[in-house]
């Protein structure tokens, strides 16, 4: 196992860990709001991963100045993709919240295990 490679690429490691934490929150927390928070932690880890992917050490912002073109630019594509990803994540969160509000009207609680008892 090559730990040095792991440490130099720490953004990837961190994003995978956050992804795992987010998934764990979604799957283990009984509270629905916490589940949605976990969902957002998870998707944000993915966004972090993509942004880290696009970053190039010593790269400039990808705006070409015709007078003085830089040698190295940061890859703008992952950032552009993540913009889409954020919109998707936002709409999922909004939809989940709408459903949770509706469930709260039905059950009067946000604790998922209680739903089974009340049914």
């Amino acid at each position, binding site marked *: 196992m090559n730990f040095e490679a792991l440490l130099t690429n720490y953004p990837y490691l961190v994003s995978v860990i956050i992804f795992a934490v987010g998934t764990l929150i979604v799957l283990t927390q009984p509270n629905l709001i916490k589940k949605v928070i976990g969902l957002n932690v*998870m998707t944000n880890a*993915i966004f972090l991963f993509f942004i880290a992917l696009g970053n190039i050490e010593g790269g400039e912002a990808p705006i070409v100045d015709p007078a003085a073109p830089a040698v190295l630019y940061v890859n703008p594509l992952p950032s552009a993709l993540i913009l*889409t990803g954020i919109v998707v994540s936002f709409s999922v969160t909004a*939809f*989940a919240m709408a459903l949770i509000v*509706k469930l709260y009207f039905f059950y009067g609680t946000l604790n998922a295990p209680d739903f089974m008892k009340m049914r």
Partner: protein
Amino acid sequence: MIPLSKMPLILILAGLIPAFTMPALARWKRELCAPYAIAVCGLVFSVALYLFSFVVRGEVLPLYVGGWEPPWGIEIAIDPLSGMMAILITGLALLIAIYSYHALRKEMKAEARGWYYVEFLLCMVAMLGLVITKDLFNMYVFIEVVGLSACALVVSKGERIAVEASLKYLILATIGSGFVVFGIGFIYMVTGHLNMAMAGQVLVENASRYPYLLWAAMSFFVVGFGVKSALFPLHLWLPDAHSSAPSPSSAVLSSLVVKVYIVALFKIFFVVFGTVLYQESYIRYLILILASAAMVGGSLFAFVQLELKRRLAYSTVAQIGYIYLGIGLGTPWAIVAAFMHLIVHALMKTCLFLCAGAIYYQTGRKKVTQLAGLGAKMPLTAAAMTVASFSMVGIPLTGGFISKFMLARGSIEAGYPYFIILIVVSGLLNAMYYFPILWQIYFVSPGEHDEHGEDQENGTHGNQGDHGSHDSGGSFKWDQIPLTMKIPIAATAAGVVVLGIVGIFMFDYLQKIVSLYLG
């Protein structure tokens, strides 16, 4: 006139634009929503047919969106696979839209119906986009649109149980798409491309340098698409979601939505990773094991369900196992069988769900124990259900027989002949939970059902069922359902039989897909 090269885009826009004008229509002219949706589905279906006519002749119609070529732009293409899927999706969507016209009046509130069609059209369009796209990130966006609109379809009835099922579906589907997009990130990391074919080329050259990363990416894709397409241990959301949705939505969800994810997974495996890499990977064995577990486990779960739609939903879990088995075996015949089963299952599961909806429409019954005497009261529905059930079991002259036969041939070709035993056992298990339904329908007289069914019922559903059971003791009578519900049921049942008789001739076409993707 629109040039042919732009037609793949029209296929999507023809559904997408009406989907977003639907809310305005629902606001002002609510009663026009349903005819409008049918017209839109008909239009999209005719566009798909037009494009299909070129694909049959062996043409592939690529389109670079915005005119930018692949390394930068997004490529969508109508090839044999996506052409076939487009026909399947739009054709079934058209039938289901026709069915919804009357069925929804019984199952949904009037205010919700306009929004239902928005979700319906969005779902159809996103599924079309998912099968015709050749770009990984574009695929992710379509996956999310399919997921969100499918959740909306589940919740559209607004019942407590549906809201709960929809939230469960939403959360698990989002986890699934999280895994998928992480996998896409891995692919982009290795190859620097988002176009599938280009990523595939780079991957073939560099595969030996990043074995662990690629295995991780593959397993991420399997988990992600596995959750979304209900591969056996990850199917937990499916029974609730599919059984609590209105019947037309259940038909869409069960016959189309779970399938397009399998198509997407197939494209990623065989275009991005390539046949060689896929055949060498160990994840193939995991797919085989899970598919086998699905074929047996899904059937066993279905056996213990008393609610008709729940039983059908668990049956979907089992049938998804067949398709994954074909993909897991990975040989040409197995892939052909997988796609054959995909088409056949889409038809027969649509038919069964529409029949379940028709039974609910006429009699208000939901349990399998309450179906006694329906053979005389609803002969058309009963006949369609019989055909579809026979196809599920795999009796000759139905589509299910051909696909299972091909799957057996594929498993011999792949060198795993013992999967034939599994296919036979699973077929028998299917018989075990479908034939009791048919037995109830044809051979149990309605009088017996009262003692039989009512004690398990707490009365609420039983009361609704009364007006059907009084007047027609054992006398033969045609179904008391509107024509708009009869046509789709009859059409899907006929489709199952036609596939069973002429299905052999589809192999040439399916071979084209195999030769295009497996190389």
